[in-house]
Protein backbone atom coordinates (compact mmCIF):
# COMPACT_ATOMS: atom_id res chain seq x y z
CA UNK A 1 0.00 0.00 0.00
CA UNK A 2 2.60 2.45 1.14
CA UNK A 3 4.91 1.79 -1.77
CA UNK A 4 2.01 2.24 -4.18
CA UNK A 5 1.08 5.59 -2.69
CA UNK A 6 4.60 6.82 -2.40
CA UNK A 7 5.17 7.92 -6.04
CA UNK A 8 1.97 9.98 -5.98
CA UNK A 9 2.74 11.57 -2.65
CA UNK A 10 6.29 12.26 -3.74
CA UNK A 11 5.17 13.79 -7.01
CA UNK A 12 2.66 15.99 -5.22
CA UNK A 13 5.18 17.13 -2.63
CA UNK A 14 7.78 17.67 -5.35
CA UNK A 15 5.42 19.83 -7.42
CA UNK A 16 4.46 21.81 -4.32
CA UNK A 17 8.02 22.27 -3.19
CA UNK A 18 9.02 23.41 -6.70
CA UNK A 19 6.21 25.91 -6.81
CA UNK A 20 6.76 27.16 -3.30
CA UNK A 21 10.50 27.33 -3.72
CA UNK A 22 10.06 29.38 -6.88
CA UNK A 23 7.67 31.69 -5.04
CA UNK A 24 10.05 31.82 -2.08
CA UNK A 25 13.04 32.74 -4.20
CA UNK A 26 11.00 35.41 -5.92
CA UNK A 27 10.37 36.98 -2.51
CA UNK A 28 14.17 37.10 -2.11
CA UNK A 29 15.21 33.68 -1.04
CA UNK A 30 13.94 31.83 1.97
CA UNK A 31 14.33 28.07 2.01
CA UNK A 32 12.90 25.49 4.37
CA UNK A 33 13.74 21.82 4.88
CA UNK A 34 12.02 19.38 7.22
CA UNK A 35 13.89 16.38 8.61
CA UNK A 36 12.05 14.06 8.57
CA UNK A 37 9.22 15.29 6.37
CA UNK A 38 7.00 12.43 7.42
CA UNK A 39 5.61 11.40 10.81
CA UNK A 40 4.59 7.79 11.08
CA UNK A 41 2.10 6.92 13.78
CA UNK A 42 2.94 3.29 14.45
CA UNK A 43 2.61 1.03 17.46
CA UNK A 44 5.56 2.69 19.18
CA UNK A 45 4.56 6.29 18.45
CA UNK A 46 4.70 8.66 21.38
CA UNK A 47 5.27 12.02 19.79
CA UNK A 48 8.51 13.08 18.15
CA UNK A 49 10.66 15.85 16.79
CA UNK A 50 11.13 17.43 13.40
CA UNK A 51 14.18 19.52 12.57
CA UNK A 52 13.36 22.63 10.59
CA UNK A 53 16.33 24.19 8.82
CA UNK A 54 16.88 26.55 5.92
CA UNK A 55 18.03 29.92 4.69
CA UNK A 56 16.73 33.44 5.25
CA UNK A 57 18.16 36.81 4.27
CA UNK A 58 20.92 37.72 6.68
CA UNK A 59 20.01 39.81 9.69
CA UNK A 60 16.33 38.96 9.69
CA UNK A 61 14.20 37.58 12.47
CA UNK A 62 12.65 34.19 11.84
CA UNK A 63 9.15 32.99 12.57
CA UNK A 64 8.15 29.38 12.00
CA UNK A 65 4.55 28.22 11.98
CA UNK A 66 3.22 24.65 11.90
CA UNK A 67 -0.46 24.44 11.00
CA UNK A 68 -2.38 21.21 10.63
CA UNK A 69 -5.57 20.84 8.57
CA UNK A 70 -8.76 22.15 10.14
CA UNK A 71 -10.69 19.67 12.22
CA UNK A 72 -14.29 19.59 13.30
CA UNK A 73 -14.62 18.74 16.98
CA UNK A 74 -17.54 18.10 19.30
CA UNK A 75 -17.45 19.93 22.61
CA UNK A 76 -19.58 19.65 25.68
CA UNK A 77 -20.13 22.14 28.43
CA UNK A 78 -20.42 20.82 31.95
CA UNK A 79 -22.80 22.25 34.45
CA UNK A 80 -23.92 21.29 37.93
CA UNK A 81 -27.34 19.73 38.00
CA UNK A 82 -28.63 18.62 41.42
CA UNK A 83 -25.12 18.35 42.83
CA UNK A 84 -23.66 16.34 39.97
CA UNK A 85 -21.61 17.65 37.04
CA UNK A 86 -23.07 16.74 33.70
CA UNK A 87 -23.19 17.86 30.08
CA UNK A 88 -25.58 20.78 29.75
CA UNK A 89 -24.68 21.97 26.26
CA UNK A 90 -23.21 20.35 23.16
CA UNK A 91 -21.62 22.19 20.24
CA UNK A 92 -19.50 21.56 17.16
CA UNK A 93 -16.52 23.75 16.35
CA UNK A 94 -15.18 23.83 12.80
CA UNK A 95 -12.63 25.90 10.93
CA UNK A 96 -9.80 25.70 13.45
CA UNK A 97 -6.64 23.68 12.84
CA UNK A 98 -6.11 20.93 15.40
CA UNK A 99 -2.47 21.95 15.74
CA UNK A 100 -1.01 25.44 15.62
CA UNK A 101 2.57 25.99 16.70
CA UNK A 102 4.65 29.11 16.51
CA UNK A 103 8.42 29.36 17.02
CA UNK A 104 10.25 32.67 16.91
CA UNK A 105 13.94 33.56 16.87
CA UNK A 106 13.51 36.54 19.15
CA UNK A 107 10.91 37.84 21.55
CA UNK A 108 7.36 38.07 20.32
CA UNK A 109 7.32 41.66 21.54
CA UNK A 110 10.06 42.53 19.02
CA UNK A 111 7.79 41.63 16.12
CA UNK A 112 5.59 44.53 14.98
CA UNK A 113 1.96 43.97 15.89
CA UNK A 114 0.75 44.37 12.32
CA UNK A 115 3.07 41.54 11.27
CA UNK A 116 1.80 39.46 14.20
CA UNK A 117 -1.75 40.10 13.05
CA UNK A 118 -0.91 39.37 9.42
CA UNK A 119 0.64 36.03 10.29
CA UNK A 120 -1.82 35.19 13.05
CA UNK A 121 0.90 34.46 15.59
CA UNK A 122 -0.12 36.52 18.60
CA UNK A 123 0.00 34.48 21.77
CA UNK A 124 -3.80 34.65 22.19
CA UNK A 125 -4.26 32.86 18.89
CA UNK A 126 -6.79 35.52 17.91
CA UNK A 127 -6.25 34.91 14.18
CA UNK A 128 -7.11 31.23 14.60
CA UNK A 129 -10.06 32.10 16.80
CA UNK A 130 -11.56 34.24 14.07
CA UNK A 131 -11.65 31.18 11.77
CA UNK A 132 -13.84 29.22 14.17
CA UNK A 133 -17.51 28.58 13.58
CA UNK A 134 -19.47 27.20 16.51
CA UNK A 135 -22.74 25.42 15.77
CA UNK A 136 -25.39 23.76 17.85
CA UNK A 137 -28.04 21.24 16.86
CA UNK A 138 -31.64 22.20 17.54
CA UNK A 139 -33.94 19.35 16.54
CA UNK A 140 -32.36 18.50 13.19
CA UNK A 141 -31.53 22.17 12.53
CA UNK A 142 -27.97 23.41 12.81
CA UNK A 143 -27.71 26.85 14.36
CA UNK A 144 -24.59 29.00 14.37
CA UNK A 145 -23.85 30.54 17.75
CA UNK A 146 -23.40 34.29 18.00
CA UNK A 147 -19.95 35.61 18.79
CA UNK A 148 -20.51 36.07 22.49
CA UNK A 149 -21.74 32.55 23.14
CA UNK A 150 -19.24 31.05 20.68
CA UNK A 151 -16.29 32.63 22.45
CA UNK A 152 -16.64 30.46 25.54
CA UNK A 153 -16.38 27.30 23.44
CA UNK A 154 -13.54 28.59 21.25
CA UNK A 155 -11.53 29.66 24.30
CA UNK A 156 -12.28 26.32 25.93
CA UNK A 157 -11.10 24.46 22.83
CA UNK A 158 -7.87 26.46 22.69
CA UNK A 159 -7.28 25.68 26.36
CA UNK A 160 -7.76 21.96 25.61
CA UNK A 161 -5.33 22.18 22.68
CA UNK A 162 -2.76 24.10 24.75
CA UNK A 163 -2.97 21.50 27.48
CA UNK A 164 -2.08 18.84 24.91
CA UNK A 165 0.77 20.94 23.49
CA UNK A 166 -1.07 21.19 20.19
CA UNK A 167 -1.22 25.00 20.41
CA UNK A 168 2.09 26.51 21.47
CA UNK A 169 4.09 29.69 21.11
CA UNK A 170 7.82 29.35 21.75
CA UNK A 171 9.95 32.48 21.85
CA UNK A 172 13.72 32.39 21.32
CA UNK A 173 13.26 28.90 19.88
CA UNK A 174 14.82 29.43 16.44
CA UNK A 175 18.59 29.69 16.12
CA UNK A 176 19.72 32.06 13.39
CA UNK A 177 23.33 32.53 12.26
CA UNK A 178 24.73 33.83 9.00
CA UNK A 179 21.51 33.58 7.07
CA UNK A 180 20.78 30.03 8.18
CA UNK A 181 18.17 29.04 10.73
CA UNK A 182 17.39 25.88 12.71
CA UNK A 183 14.58 24.92 15.05
CA UNK A 184 13.05 21.78 16.49
CA UNK A 185 9.33 21.16 16.18
CA UNK A 186 8.00 19.20 19.13
CA UNK A 187 5.39 16.81 17.80
CA UNK A 188 2.80 15.87 20.44
CA UNK A 189 1.49 12.30 20.58
CA UNK A 190 -1.98 13.28 19.43
CA UNK A 191 -0.87 15.21 16.35
CA UNK A 192 -3.73 15.22 13.85
CA UNK A 193 -3.26 13.05 10.79
CA UNK A 194 -2.97 14.63 7.36
CA UNK A 195 -0.65 17.27 5.97
CA UNK A 196 0.74 19.81 8.40
CA UNK A 197 1.97 22.96 6.67
CA UNK A 198 5.21 24.37 8.02
CA UNK A 199 5.92 27.99 7.08
CA UNK A 200 8.94 30.18 7.63
CA UNK A 201 8.84 33.98 7.57
CA UNK A 202 11.84 36.29 7.61
CA UNK A 203 11.18 39.69 9.18
CA UNK A 204 13.68 42.30 8.09
CA UNK A 205 15.09 45.15 10.14
CA UNK A 206 12.37 47.47 8.85
CA UNK A 207 9.79 45.23 10.50
CA UNK A 208 8.22 43.80 7.37
CA UNK A 209 8.18 40.27 6.00
CA UNK A 210 11.02 40.11 3.47
CA UNK A 211 10.93 36.42 2.60
CA UNK A 212 8.86 33.32 3.20
CA UNK A 213 8.70 29.69 2.27
CA UNK A 214 6.79 26.59 3.26
CA UNK A 215 6.98 22.81 3.30
CA UNK A 216 4.60 19.98 4.07
CA UNK A 217 4.85 17.47 6.89
CA UNK A 218 2.95 14.27 6.17
CA UNK A 219 1.41 12.69 9.24
CA UNK A 220 0.02 9.23 8.74
CA UNK A 221 -0.77 6.05 10.61
CA UNK A 222 1.29 3.02 9.61
CA UNK A 223 1.44 -0.69 10.37
CA UNK A 224 -0.83 -2.13 13.00
CA UNK A 225 -2.22 1.26 14.02
CA UNK A 226 -3.27 1.95 10.44
CA UNK A 227 -4.62 -1.54 9.73
CA UNK A 228 -6.60 -1.83 12.95
CA UNK A 229 -7.69 1.81 13.02
CA UNK A 230 -9.00 1.68 9.44
CA UNK A 231 -10.68 -1.64 10.03
CA UNK A 232 -12.38 -0.44 13.24
CA UNK A 233 -13.68 2.64 11.46
CA UNK A 234 -14.66 1.28 8.05
CA UNK A 235 -15.11 -2.45 8.46
CA UNK A 236 -16.62 -2.70 11.91
CA UNK A 237 -18.23 -6.14 11.57
CA UNK A 238 -14.97 -7.78 10.50
CA UNK A 239 -13.13 -5.86 13.22
CA UNK A 240 -15.58 -7.04 15.89
CA UNK A 241 -15.24 -10.64 14.76
CA UNK A 242 -11.46 -10.28 14.72
CA UNK A 243 -11.51 -8.85 18.26
CA UNK A 244 -13.56 -11.80 19.50
CA UNK A 245 -11.43 -14.34 17.59
CA UNK A 246 -8.16 -12.92 18.87
CA UNK A 247 -9.53 -12.90 22.43
CA UNK A 248 -10.72 -16.53 22.23
CA UNK A 249 -7.47 -17.83 20.76
CA UNK A 250 -5.24 -15.82 23.13
CA UNK A 251 -7.37 -16.76 26.11
CA UNK A 252 -7.28 -20.49 25.43
CA UNK A 253 -3.61 -20.59 24.37
CA UNK A 254 -2.37 -18.69 27.41
CA UNK A 255 -4.48 -20.85 29.73
CA UNK A 256 -2.92 -23.95 28.13
CA UNK A 257 0.51 -22.44 28.60
CA UNK A 258 -0.08 -21.88 32.30
CA UNK A 259 -1.43 -25.41 32.70
CA UNK A 260 1.74 -26.69 31.10
CA UNK A 261 3.83 -24.41 33.29
CA UNK A 262 2.15 -25.70 36.42
CA UNK A 263 2.75 -29.31 35.44
CA UNK A 264 6.28 -28.91 34.11
CA UNK A 265 7.74 -26.31 36.45
CA UNK A 266 5.71 -26.32 39.63
CA UNK A 267 4.84 -30.03 39.47
CA UNK A 268 1.28 -29.31 40.41
CA UNK A 269 -1.60 -31.30 39.10
CA UNK A 270 -4.68 -29.23 39.63
CA UNK A 271 -4.87 -25.53 40.35
CA UNK A 272 -8.14 -23.69 40.08
CA UNK A 273 -7.68 -20.18 38.89
CA UNK A 274 -10.25 -17.46 38.78
CA UNK A 275 -13.69 -18.82 39.26
Amino acid at each position, binding site marked *: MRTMLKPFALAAVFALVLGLAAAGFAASGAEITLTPDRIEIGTG*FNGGEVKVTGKVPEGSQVIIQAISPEKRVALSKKGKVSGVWMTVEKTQVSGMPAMFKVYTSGKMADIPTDVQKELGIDSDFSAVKSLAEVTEKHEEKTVTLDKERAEEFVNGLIALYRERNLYTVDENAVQVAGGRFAATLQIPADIPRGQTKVLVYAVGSDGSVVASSSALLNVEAVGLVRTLGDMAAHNAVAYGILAVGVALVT*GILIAQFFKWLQKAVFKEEHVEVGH
Partner: protein
Amino acid sequence: MKHLFKFFTIRRDKVVMEIYLPVAGMPVNVFVIAGLGAMVGVLSGLFGVGGGFLLTPLLMFVGIPPAVAAASDTNQIVAASASGALAHKRLGNVDMKLGAFFLIGGIFGGTLGAQLVKVLRGMGNYDLTMKLIYVVMLTLVGGFMFIEGLQALKGKKAAKKEGAKPSAFKRFVAKLPLQTEFKVAGIRTSALFVVGLGFIVGTLAALLGVGGGFITMPAMIYLLGMPTIVAIGTDLFQIVFTTMNVTIQQAITNHSVDIVLAILLFCGSTIGAQIGARLSRRFKGEQLRVLLAVIVLAVMVKIVFELVATPGALIQFSSGGGGH
Protein backbone atom coordinates in the same frame (compact mmCIF):
# COMPACT_ATOMS: atom_id res chain seq x y z
CA MET B 1 6.36 -8.18 12.68
CA LYS B 2 8.58 -5.10 12.58
CA HIS B 3 6.28 -2.97 14.71
CA LEU B 4 6.38 -5.51 17.52
CA PHE B 5 9.96 -4.54 18.17
CA LYS B 6 9.15 -0.87 18.16
CA PHE B 7 7.57 -1.22 21.62
CA PHE B 8 10.90 -0.29 23.11
CA THR B 9 11.34 3.37 22.51
CA ILE B 10 14.13 5.19 24.20
CA ARG B 11 13.14 8.67 25.29
CA ARG B 12 14.79 11.09 27.62
CA ASP B 13 17.52 8.64 28.61
CA LYS B 14 15.20 6.05 30.02
CA VAL B 15 13.39 3.11 28.56
CA VAL B 16 9.67 3.67 28.54
CA MET B 17 7.46 1.05 27.01
CA GLU B 18 4.85 3.06 25.22
CA ILE B 19 2.32 1.53 22.90
CA TYR B 20 -0.06 3.45 20.68
CA LEU B 21 -3.68 2.31 20.93
CA PRO B 22 -5.16 2.29 17.40
CA VAL B 23 -8.79 2.86 18.41
CA ALA B 24 -8.35 4.97 21.54
CA GLY B 25 -5.92 7.01 19.40
CA MET B 26 -3.45 7.61 22.20
CA PRO B 27 -0.20 6.17 23.48
CA VAL B 28 -0.25 4.38 26.83
CA ASN B 29 2.43 2.96 29.05
CA VAL B 30 2.44 -0.83 28.69
CA PHE B 31 3.38 -1.30 32.34
CA VAL B 32 0.55 0.89 33.59
CA ILE B 33 -2.11 -0.95 31.54
CA ALA B 34 -0.76 -4.46 32.05
CA GLY B 35 -0.20 -3.50 35.69
CA LEU B 36 -3.84 -2.55 36.12
CA GLY B 37 -4.79 -5.83 34.46
CA ALA B 38 -2.44 -7.70 36.81
CA MET B 39 -3.80 -5.92 39.87
CA VAL B 40 -7.36 -6.86 39.00
CA GLY B 41 -6.10 -10.33 38.01
CA VAL B 42 -4.54 -10.84 41.44
CA LEU B 43 -7.84 -9.84 43.03
CA SER B 44 -9.79 -12.18 40.80
CA GLY B 45 -7.36 -15.01 41.56
CA LEU B 46 -7.59 -14.26 45.27
CA PHE B 47 -11.33 -13.87 45.52
CA GLY B 48 -12.62 -15.80 42.56
CA VAL B 49 -14.43 -12.77 41.17
CA GLY B 50 -14.27 -11.64 37.56
CA GLY B 51 -12.98 -8.16 38.26
CA GLY B 52 -14.50 -6.43 35.24
CA PHE B 53 -16.37 -4.11 37.58
CA LEU B 54 -13.04 -2.80 38.88
CA LEU B 55 -11.11 -2.74 35.61
CA THR B 56 -13.35 -0.31 33.71
CA PRO B 57 -13.25 2.41 36.42
CA LEU B 58 -9.48 1.93 36.84
CA LEU B 59 -8.97 2.39 33.08
CA MET B 60 -11.02 5.58 33.23
CA PHE B 61 -8.84 6.83 36.08
CA VAL B 62 -5.73 6.55 33.85
CA GLY B 63 -7.35 8.53 31.05
CA ILE B 64 -8.85 5.92 28.71
CA PRO B 65 -12.15 7.31 27.35
CA PRO B 66 -15.04 5.61 29.21
CA ALA B 67 -16.61 4.09 26.08
CA VAL B 68 -13.29 2.56 24.97
CA ALA B 69 -12.57 1.37 28.51
CA ALA B 70 -15.91 -0.46 28.81
CA ALA B 71 -15.88 -2.01 25.31
CA SER B 72 -12.23 -3.14 25.48
CA ASP B 73 -12.76 -4.55 28.96
CA THR B 74 -15.63 -6.63 27.56
CA ASN B 75 -13.29 -7.87 24.83
CA GLN B 76 -10.74 -8.79 27.52
CA ILE B 77 -13.37 -10.76 29.43
CA VAL B 78 -13.92 -12.97 26.35
CA ALA B 79 -10.26 -14.01 26.61
CA ALA B 80 -10.31 -14.32 30.38
CA SER B 81 -13.37 -16.56 30.58
CA ALA B 82 -12.95 -18.74 27.47
CA SER B 83 -10.72 -21.46 28.87
CA GLY B 84 -12.55 -21.62 32.19
CA ALA B 85 -15.84 -22.08 30.37
CA LEU B 86 -14.36 -24.86 28.24
CA ALA B 87 -12.99 -26.63 31.31
CA HIS B 88 -16.32 -26.46 33.15
CA LYS B 89 -18.14 -27.66 30.05
CA ARG B 90 -15.86 -30.69 29.90
CA LEU B 91 -16.44 -31.41 33.58
CA GLY B 92 -20.20 -31.24 33.07
CA ASN B 93 -20.71 -28.18 35.25
CA VAL B 94 -22.68 -26.22 32.67
CA ASP B 95 -26.46 -26.41 32.55
CA MET B 96 -26.79 -25.89 28.81
CA LYS B 97 -30.54 -25.47 28.91
CA LEU B 98 -30.41 -22.79 31.57
CA GLY B 99 -27.44 -21.19 29.83
CA ALA B 100 -29.35 -21.08 26.55
CA PHE B 101 -32.36 -19.32 28.14
CA PHE B 102 -29.99 -16.98 29.94
CA LEU B 103 -28.30 -16.18 26.63
CA ILE B 104 -31.57 -15.32 24.90
CA GLY B 105 -31.91 -12.49 27.39
CA GLY B 106 -28.17 -11.79 27.43
CA ILE B 107 -27.81 -11.37 23.66
CA PHE B 108 -30.89 -9.16 23.52
CA GLY B 109 -29.74 -7.09 26.50
CA GLY B 110 -26.19 -6.71 25.19
CA THR B 111 -27.39 -5.56 21.77
CA LEU B 112 -29.77 -3.07 23.36
CA GLY B 113 -27.05 -1.96 25.77
CA ALA B 114 -24.68 -1.08 22.91
CA GLN B 115 -27.43 1.03 21.31
CA LEU B 116 -28.04 2.67 24.67
CA VAL B 117 -24.35 3.58 24.85
CA LYS B 118 -24.67 5.22 21.43
CA VAL B 119 -27.73 7.25 22.40
CA LEU B 120 -26.18 8.34 25.71
CA ARG B 121 -22.93 9.33 23.99
CA GLY B 122 -24.94 11.35 21.50
CA MET B 123 -26.54 13.17 24.40
CA GLY B 124 -23.11 13.68 25.94
CA ASN B 125 -24.02 11.98 29.18
CA TYR B 126 -22.78 8.40 28.80
CA ASP B 127 -19.97 9.03 31.30
CA LEU B 128 -22.43 10.35 33.85
CA THR B 129 -24.88 7.45 33.46
CA MET B 130 -22.11 4.91 33.65
CA LYS B 131 -20.56 6.47 36.72
CA LEU B 132 -23.92 6.68 38.50
CA ILE B 133 -24.63 3.00 37.84
CA TYR B 134 -21.12 2.16 39.02
CA VAL B 135 -21.63 4.06 42.26
CA VAL B 136 -24.84 2.18 43.02
CA MET B 137 -23.35 -1.16 42.04
CA LEU B 138 -20.03 -0.81 43.81
CA THR B 139 -21.78 0.43 46.94
CA LEU B 140 -24.02 -2.63 46.99
CA VAL B 141 -21.28 -5.14 46.18
CA GLY B 142 -18.66 -3.51 48.42
CA GLY B 143 -21.08 -2.88 51.27
CA PHE B 144 -22.40 -6.43 51.22
CA MET B 145 -18.90 -7.94 51.13
CA PHE B 146 -17.69 -5.62 53.88
CA ILE B 147 -20.51 -6.52 56.27
CA GLU B 148 -20.31 -10.21 55.46
CA GLY B 149 -16.53 -10.23 55.86
CA LEU B 150 -16.68 -8.38 59.18
CA GLN B 151 -19.28 -10.75 60.54
CA ALA B 152 -17.18 -13.71 59.49
CA LEU B 153 -14.10 -12.14 61.11
CA LYS B 154 -16.01 -11.70 64.36
CA GLY B 155 -16.78 -15.38 64.23
CA LYS B 156 -20.48 -15.05 63.58
CA LYS B 157 -21.07 -17.53 60.83
CA ALA B 158 -23.11 -15.45 58.41
CA ALA B 159 -26.46 -16.42 59.88
CA LYS B 160 -28.47 -18.50 57.48
CA LYS B 161 -31.01 -15.83 56.70
CA GLU B 162 -31.29 -16.90 53.09
CA GLY B 163 -33.77 -19.63 53.89
CA ALA B 164 -36.34 -17.16 55.21
CA LYS B 165 -35.73 -13.95 53.32
CA PRO B 166 -36.00 -14.76 49.63
CA SER B 167 -39.00 -17.01 50.11
CA ALA B 168 -41.40 -14.25 49.06
CA PHE B 169 -39.32 -13.77 45.95
CA LYS B 170 -39.18 -17.52 45.36
CA ARG B 171 -42.96 -17.70 45.62
CA PHE B 172 -43.20 -14.90 43.08
CA VAL B 173 -40.87 -16.68 40.65
CA ALA B 174 -42.81 -19.89 41.14
CA LYS B 175 -45.95 -18.10 39.92
CA LEU B 176 -44.31 -16.90 36.69
CA PRO B 177 -45.23 -18.75 33.50
CA LEU B 178 -42.94 -21.16 31.61
CA GLN B 179 -41.89 -23.22 34.65
CA THR B 180 -39.08 -25.40 33.36
CA GLU B 181 -37.02 -28.26 34.70
CA PHE B 182 -33.26 -27.65 34.58
CA LYS B 183 -31.68 -31.07 35.11
CA VAL B 184 -27.98 -30.27 35.51
CA ALA B 185 -28.73 -27.44 37.91
CA GLY B 186 -31.27 -29.65 39.66
CA ILE B 187 -33.87 -26.89 39.90
CA ARG B 188 -37.28 -26.05 38.56
CA THR B 189 -37.96 -22.41 37.86
CA SER B 190 -39.52 -20.01 35.38
CA ALA B 191 -37.60 -19.74 32.10
CA LEU B 192 -38.93 -16.19 31.94
CA PHE B 193 -37.02 -15.31 35.09
CA VAL B 194 -33.81 -16.75 33.60
CA VAL B 195 -34.29 -14.78 30.37
CA GLY B 196 -34.96 -11.61 32.37
CA LEU B 197 -31.85 -12.13 34.47
CA GLY B 198 -29.83 -12.63 31.27
CA PHE B 199 -31.30 -9.44 29.85
CA ILE B 200 -30.21 -7.35 32.85
CA VAL B 201 -26.73 -8.88 32.89
CA GLY B 202 -26.35 -8.38 29.11
CA THR B 203 -27.38 -4.73 29.32
CA LEU B 204 -24.95 -4.08 32.18
CA ALA B 205 -22.19 -5.88 30.25
CA ALA B 206 -22.55 -3.36 27.43
CA LEU B 207 -23.04 -0.27 29.59
CA LEU B 208 -20.27 -0.96 32.09
CA GLY B 209 -17.90 -3.47 30.49
CA VAL B 210 -18.48 -6.16 33.08
CA GLY B 211 -19.15 -9.90 33.00
CA GLY B 212 -21.88 -9.49 35.58
CA GLY B 213 -20.81 -12.37 37.85
CA PHE B 214 -21.58 -10.22 40.89
CA ILE B 215 -25.27 -10.38 39.93
CA THR B 216 -25.44 -13.78 38.26
CA MET B 217 -23.69 -15.71 41.01
CA PRO B 218 -25.82 -14.59 43.98
CA ALA B 219 -28.96 -14.90 41.84
CA MET B 220 -28.14 -18.45 40.77
CA ILE B 221 -26.97 -19.64 44.17
CA TYR B 222 -29.33 -17.83 46.56
CA LEU B 223 -32.42 -17.15 44.47
CA LEU B 224 -32.45 -20.22 42.24
CA GLY B 225 -30.73 -22.57 44.68
CA MET B 226 -28.25 -23.96 42.15
CA PRO B 227 -25.16 -25.84 43.33
CA THR B 228 -22.21 -23.41 43.44
CA ILE B 229 -20.09 -25.35 40.94
CA VAL B 230 -22.91 -25.47 38.35
CA ALA B 231 -23.58 -21.77 38.93
CA ILE B 232 -19.90 -21.00 38.24
CA GLY B 233 -19.80 -23.21 35.12
CA THR B 234 -23.06 -21.87 33.70
CA ASP B 235 -22.11 -18.28 34.49
CA LEU B 236 -18.75 -18.64 32.70
CA PHE B 237 -20.52 -20.25 29.74
CA GLN B 238 -22.97 -17.37 29.39
CA ILE B 239 -20.26 -14.75 29.99
CA VAL B 240 -18.22 -15.98 27.00
CA PHE B 241 -21.16 -15.61 24.62
CA THR B 242 -22.62 -12.45 26.15
CA THR B 243 -19.26 -10.64 26.01
CA MET B 244 -18.59 -11.96 22.47
CA ASN B 245 -21.88 -10.43 21.38
CA VAL B 246 -21.28 -7.18 23.25
CA THR B 247 -17.77 -6.86 21.76
CA ILE B 248 -19.12 -7.20 18.21
CA GLN B 249 -22.06 -4.86 18.93
CA GLN B 250 -19.76 -2.21 20.42
CA ALA B 251 -17.40 -2.50 17.45
CA ILE B 252 -20.29 -1.97 15.03
CA THR B 253 -22.31 0.62 16.93
CA ASN B 254 -19.70 2.63 18.81
CA HIS B 255 -16.31 1.80 17.20
CA SER B 256 -14.98 1.65 20.72
CA VAL B 257 -13.24 -1.75 20.96
CA ASP B 258 -9.46 -1.47 21.14
CA ILE B 259 -7.94 -4.92 20.52
CA VAL B 260 -4.47 -3.83 21.57
CA LEU B 261 -5.79 -2.50 24.86
CA ALA B 262 -7.81 -5.68 25.43
CA ILE B 263 -4.82 -7.97 24.82
CA LEU B 264 -2.59 -5.88 27.09
CA LEU B 265 -5.19 -6.07 29.85
CA PHE B 266 -5.63 -9.78 29.38
CA CYS B 267 -1.87 -10.46 29.53
CA GLY B 268 -1.71 -8.55 32.79
CA SER B 269 -4.80 -10.10 34.29
CA THR B 270 -3.92 -13.68 33.42
CA ILE B 271 -0.52 -13.40 35.10
CA GLY B 272 -2.14 -11.61 38.03
CA ALA B 273 -4.73 -14.37 38.39
CA GLN B 274 -1.97 -16.98 38.69
CA ILE B 275 -0.30 -14.96 41.43
CA GLY B 276 -3.64 -14.36 43.14
CA ALA B 277 -4.54 -18.06 43.10
CA ARG B 278 -1.21 -18.89 44.78
CA LEU B 279 -1.54 -16.10 47.33
CA SER B 280 -5.09 -17.12 48.21
CA ARG B 281 -3.80 -20.31 49.79
CA ARG B 282 -1.80 -18.32 52.33
CA PHE B 283 -4.43 -15.89 53.54
CA LYS B 284 -7.64 -16.15 55.49
CA GLY B 285 -10.68 -15.77 53.28
CA GLU B 286 -12.49 -13.36 55.61
CA GLN B 287 -9.59 -10.93 55.80
CA LEU B 288 -9.33 -10.97 52.04
CA ARG B 289 -13.02 -10.31 51.63
CA VAL B 290 -12.86 -7.24 53.86
CA LEU B 291 -9.81 -6.07 51.91
CA LEU B 292 -11.59 -6.46 48.57
CA ALA B 293 -14.62 -4.68 50.00
CA VAL B 294 -12.41 -1.77 51.04
CA ILE B 295 -10.87 -1.60 47.52
CA VAL B 296 -14.30 -1.68 45.89
CA LEU B 297 -15.60 1.04 48.22
CA ALA B 298 -12.49 3.17 47.61
CA VAL B 299 -13.07 3.03 43.85
CA MET B 300 -16.70 3.98 44.48
CA VAL B 301 -15.67 6.99 46.58
CA LYS B 302 -13.26 8.11 43.84
CA ILE B 303 -16.07 7.99 41.27
CA VAL B 304 -18.41 9.93 43.57
CA PHE B 305 -15.64 12.50 43.98
CA GLU B 306 -15.31 12.79 40.18
CA LEU B 307 -19.04 13.34 39.90
CA VAL B 308 -19.33 16.12 42.45
CA ALA B 309 -15.91 17.84 42.23
CA THR B 310 -15.72 20.91 40.02
CA PRO B 311 -14.02 19.85 36.77
CA GLY B 312 -10.77 21.53 35.77
CA ALA B 313 -12.39 22.90 32.64
CA LEU B 314 -16.06 23.36 31.91
CA ILE B 315 -15.56 22.90 28.17
CA GLN B 316 -14.46 19.39 27.28
CA PHE B 317 -14.15 17.15 24.23
CA SER B 318 -17.29 15.11 23.97
CA SER B 319 -16.19 12.50 21.45
CA GLY B 320 -15.34 10.10 24.26
CA GLY B 321 -12.70 8.41 22.11
CA GLY B 322 -13.03 5.87 19.36
CA GLY B 323 -14.19 6.52 15.83
CA HIS B 324 -10.96 7.79 14.35
